[in-house]
């Protein structure tokens, strides 16, 4: 199948190879949570709610030096093209929960909140490729919304290699094409990679290009997220008044 049109260079959804899908971030979607956010990358839609820092529920896990970060990932039954009933705690959910937790933990300044716990709940409403990345981006927004101190803005993006072209931000069709799928998560200001996953095969030099493309995508998303956060902060401050 022609994922990249050889004549025009457009992909199946009309994007150029190094073009991100339309992204949109919104803060404050869940009323009861300390922080929450909705993040969309094309048709992929994710809601993240953050509860904390609050008292540790399970005293045996309490850490006297830093906060405990927990994460749970769940997909709605209607999130994928074929409607499937998902069991809670299946392997993919557990793995993604672990990945998100480790990525966010690298950025949260946990030593500032000892003896407390931070819960990150991820709910996927629609999955159309790049779900992992959308979850991490939404989690960053939600944690900032909750006022939890972080080292840096963490963003994530995917890239692949089809029809001899590196492609940025794969959607579901491109992802299931059988080509490689590289997911990168970075700390944008510090320019450090915190998450790197890939499946399928890729020669080393091409891999560098694909990873570089994904990192560019992450930086673009980081700029957008920063804008959203800044705008939101200005709004709140001006409403609050002197």
């Amino acid at each position, binding site marked *: 199948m022609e994922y990249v049109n050889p004549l025009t260079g457009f992909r199946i959804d009309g994007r150029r190879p190094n073009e991100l899908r339309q992204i949109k971030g919104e803060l404050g979607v869940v009323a009861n949570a300390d922080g929450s956010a909705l993040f969309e990358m094309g048709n992929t839609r994710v809601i993240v709610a953050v509860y904390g820092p609050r008292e540790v529920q399970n005293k045996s896990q309490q850490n006297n030096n830093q906060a405990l970060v927990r994460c749970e990932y769940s997909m709605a039954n209607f999130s994928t093209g074929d409607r499937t009933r998902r069991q809670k705690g299946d392997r993919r959910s557990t793995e993604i929960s672990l990945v998100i937790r480790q990525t966010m933990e690298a950025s949260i300044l946990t030593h500032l909140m000892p003896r407390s716990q931070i819960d990150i709940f991820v709910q996927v409403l629609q999955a159309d490729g790049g779900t992992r990345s959308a979850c991490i981006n939404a989690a960053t927004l939600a944690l900032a919304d*909750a*006022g939890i101190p972080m080292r*840096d803005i963490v963003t994530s993006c995917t890239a692949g290699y089809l029809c001899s072209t590196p492609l940025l931000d794969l959607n579901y069709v491109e992802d299931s094409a059988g080509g490689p799928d590289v997911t990168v998560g970075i700390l944008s200001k510090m320019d450090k990679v915190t998450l790197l996953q890939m499946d399928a095969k890729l020669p080393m030099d091409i891999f560098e290009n694909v990873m570089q493309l994904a990192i560019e995508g992450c930086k673009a998303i980081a700029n957008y997220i920063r804008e959203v956060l800044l705008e939101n*902060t*200005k709004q709140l401050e001006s409403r*609050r008044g002197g």
Partner: protein
Amino acid sequence: MRDLQPSLNQTQRVRLQSALRQLHSLPSSSSSSPLSSVAVADPIQVNHDDNILKGHGTLDCDGEVVATLCGVVERVNKLVYVRALRARYKPEVGDIIVGRVIEIAPKRWRLEINFSQVAVLMLSSMNLPDGIQRRRTAVDELNMRSIFEENDVICAEVRGFQHDGSLHLQARSQKYGKLERGQLLTVPAYLVKRRKQHFHHLEQYGVDLIIGCNGFIWVGEHVEAGENVGMLVEDQKKTSTAEEESWSFTPLETRKHICRIANAVRLLSALGFTLTVEAIVDTAEASLASNIEINDMLGAEFFVQTAEREVQRRASMVRKKG
């Protein structure tokens, strides 16, 4: 309280947008303006020669001072810090707070106060029911439940942090203690400013309004300080039928005022305006003056009107200063 924004029709949305834009353009009365807002990982301008103290919300990253929170940069003499907006409550000694008992432990109560940990109220920091100053005995310890039970709402003062990092409260004065006959509201802690007075007795309504610095706000029937707070619970245990209970219900007039004040608090918190007694009372009076039903105070029309009224108020304050 965020998503309590009612659904607005087109004209209301336009009016609200223009009111918010005007608020944004008003010069802020405080030292910091929205221009000094920062997002996470933004660098903060400092003069490196000055031995600047890096306070909360900042991080030293390769010699550069970087924000770790989204908020507003505040500079006080040599201290630079970032004041976060929507964060959990940050306790300071002497703050008046309202909390809920979640656990009774040996010689102490544990209260939830919207902080990253639970706060502790020691039995020795609490007045005994008989009012005598004496050592707490083992019998007192067993009778802790007769003073405060689980889920009780209590008003207390922050005493300080202990060396193990836990937060301690004290409730030794007559004005602190259990709160009954009313409702507890939760608002984001940043909307409550520290003032001299947090207990307000609104005489014209007969309502007690306690604005806790942690964002828990109590609106209830007026109770004289020092009145035997155990009364209600004892009455409850005696009366078991609905008829007898209805005698002790709050009278309807007071209840209407309580609901109006509570809705004013909900409305102001949904709009993101600072909660001061004046603002709350003004909103309640405005609703009475326009004859709006108590329930409609949370509706779209009054929402937009309150925003417009706030714009007027702030504009006139700026004019008075200028």
